[in-house]
């Protein structure tokens, strides 16, 4: 509130600097490319920083790909504390044309800084910024949709009719993973039990291992981990139980931790989102607004299904995917919508996505 007038004056005094920087996209839009003036893209991480095996790493991967394929200059600023967000975003805004804030926690900081640097473009990952800001694109992901498909695979592939889910903390993206997984299992294997466990931390692989082990020992043979570094421990648990026990990875392929234990991956395309917006920046087609990326948009997907899974199970997952994309099956996003969710059995889903094959049941 009290900052408003001061913010205005700084904007005016910075106008001249910003104008020069802002010229690049304007020229690009006009079809003029200046080889010397490379587009600068800067990622500002949240406090988890690089190495989180999660969205910060994925954003970094997208930025690196943009540097390689689009020839942009790519920088990363890691935030140590929450107090760094505004400072780091401001620093990035001084010389970049596209600034990428990674994570829900940067929402307020993006709102503040983006209002001040009207000519810089922003991408906010995993959260929605103030929609009146035309220079910000917010990207969120439908983790529940990819997790629904891993639930389909797990529900059909389990030999014990028990599967597990290990979460870090019960925050919205993790809840989306949890309810999506439960809904997927419920569709294809109503008798299966889903064991839920939370470590209450994202950086304790020792506890992640114990949590997974206790689910294995209670009869689960497949455990999905959506728990950051805590989830790494799930692979140690599978290793200890030797063969017949599986891990479903969330966000990113973790086969480097033990490819023989990874059943499949509920992938989150933060890297793709970053790359796509970087491309728009280079092409001059950047547009502010909100994008909620699901299976349809390629923002999330089921990937890296191990060859141990029979083809008919993979096909069933593909049927569900087509049905979700066609809008025929709705996947719950939170506890309330999960309670209201009516499982859709596989035989109803077959051919659902192809409207030509109309059945009496319609």
């Amino acid at each position: 509130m009290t900052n408003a007038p001061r913010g205005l004056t700084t904007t005016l005094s910075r106008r001249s600097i910003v104008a020069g920087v802002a010229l690049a996209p304007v020229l690009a839009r006009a079809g003029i490319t200046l080889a010397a003036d490379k587009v600068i893209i800067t990622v500002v991480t949240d406090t988890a920083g690089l190495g989180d095996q999660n969205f910060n790493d994925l954003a970094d991967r997208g930025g690196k790909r943009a540097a390689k394929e689009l020839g942009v200059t790519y920088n990363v600023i890691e935030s140590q504390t929450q107090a760094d967000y505004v400072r780091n975003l401001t620093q990035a805004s001084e010389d970049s044309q596209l600034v990428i804030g990674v994570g829900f926690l940067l929402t307020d900081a993006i709102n503040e800084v983006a209002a001040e640097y009207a000519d810089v473009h922003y991408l906010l990952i995993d959260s929605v910024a103030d929609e009146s800001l035309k220079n910000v694109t917010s990207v969120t992901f439908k983790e529940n949709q990819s997790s629904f498909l891993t639930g389909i695979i797990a529900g059909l592939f389990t030999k014990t009719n028990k599967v597990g889910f290990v979460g870090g903390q019960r925050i919205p993206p993790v809840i989306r993973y949890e309810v999506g997984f439960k809904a997927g299992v419920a569709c294809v294997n109503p008798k299966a039990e889903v064991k839920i466990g939370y470590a209450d931390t994202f950086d304790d692989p020792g506890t992640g291992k114990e949590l997974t082990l206790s689910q294995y020992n209670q009869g689960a043979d497949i455990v999905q981990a959506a728990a950051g570094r805590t989830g790494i421990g799930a692979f140690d648990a599978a290793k200890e139980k030797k063969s017949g026990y599986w891990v479903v990875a969330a966000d990113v392929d973790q086969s480097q931790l033990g490819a023989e234990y990874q059943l499949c991956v509920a992938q989150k395309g933060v890297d793709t989102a970053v790359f796509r917006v970087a491309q728009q920046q280079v092409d001059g087609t950047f547009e502010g607004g909100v994008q909620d990326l699901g299976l349809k948009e390629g923002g999330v997907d089921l990937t890296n299904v191990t060859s141990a899974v029979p083809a008919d199970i993979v096909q069933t997952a593909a049927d569900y995917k087509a049905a979700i994309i066609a809008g025929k099956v709705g996947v719950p996003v939170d506890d309330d919508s999960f309670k209201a969710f009516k499982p859709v059995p596989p035989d109803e889903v077959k051919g659902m996505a192809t409207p030509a094959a109309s059945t009496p049941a319609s």
Partner: protein
Amino acid sequence: MGDFFTIELLKATLRMTAPLLFAALGGLLSERSGIMNIALEGLMLIGAFFAVAGTSWTGNPWLGLLIGVLAAAAGAAIHAVWCITFRADQIVAGMAINLVAAGITAFLVQRIWHKAGGSDSVQKLPNITSGMSILVPLAFLLVPVVWYFLFRTRPGLRILAGGEHPQAAESVGINVSRYRYLCVILSGVMAGLGGAYLSIGDLSYFTLDMTSGRGFIALAAMILGGWTPLGAMLATLLFGASQAVQLQAQAIGNFPISPDLLVAFPYLLTLVALAGFVRHVTPPAGLGKHATSG
């Protein structure tokens, strides 16, 4: 509930107790000599990191364990120099070690493995039985060893004297500072064992902040155990068991108690225990007091 209290639950309890017990015994040695050691968390982290780095350099997890323990002992030696020779505030010095340990391990992970967040996988120490590292029985074996050393040997009794009343001990010719150095460095050895247990005993890699507050829990357990080795063992078992039960209860599903309460259970237990029992527990009288001569 017949399938609740299984052999697997017992094993999980012992696995979760072991790192706490190592660190609690370390804290006990240091505090009995009169030096507060809240650096246990950082020393564990240093031990965990250098055990993995050492294994990666030498290809041998036993040498890795040695390197991890020596590194934690070196960290403890810095704490000793600050607290004993320079007479720094022991809490501040301990906090500094914790902060430096978190920073330096994060930095070195980047330098050695060229990635953030954690190390590559390395070979781990052997198990004595399925799901039980060889370091687990070692932790429990150290309980009588530490007890015998402190209460039945000449140096042990001198350490206790220096911890209770440093001036009196000095007056009868005991070199209090020398014994304090020994104990603080030994506490580093113990914390290093606890950290190495996490990184190459239980798991096979290092990740940032992987000790996750265990050093502080060990400290609380040591106080709850009344600064005695047997007490420390029972208290750490209590923490290990409540953690194992909590995880198991989540896995069972329709458990009558809410998971949130279960997660909070070990901490509530500490509060109740501290409020109920600690009045009967007295710390070493000379804790935090400097000896008269350097």
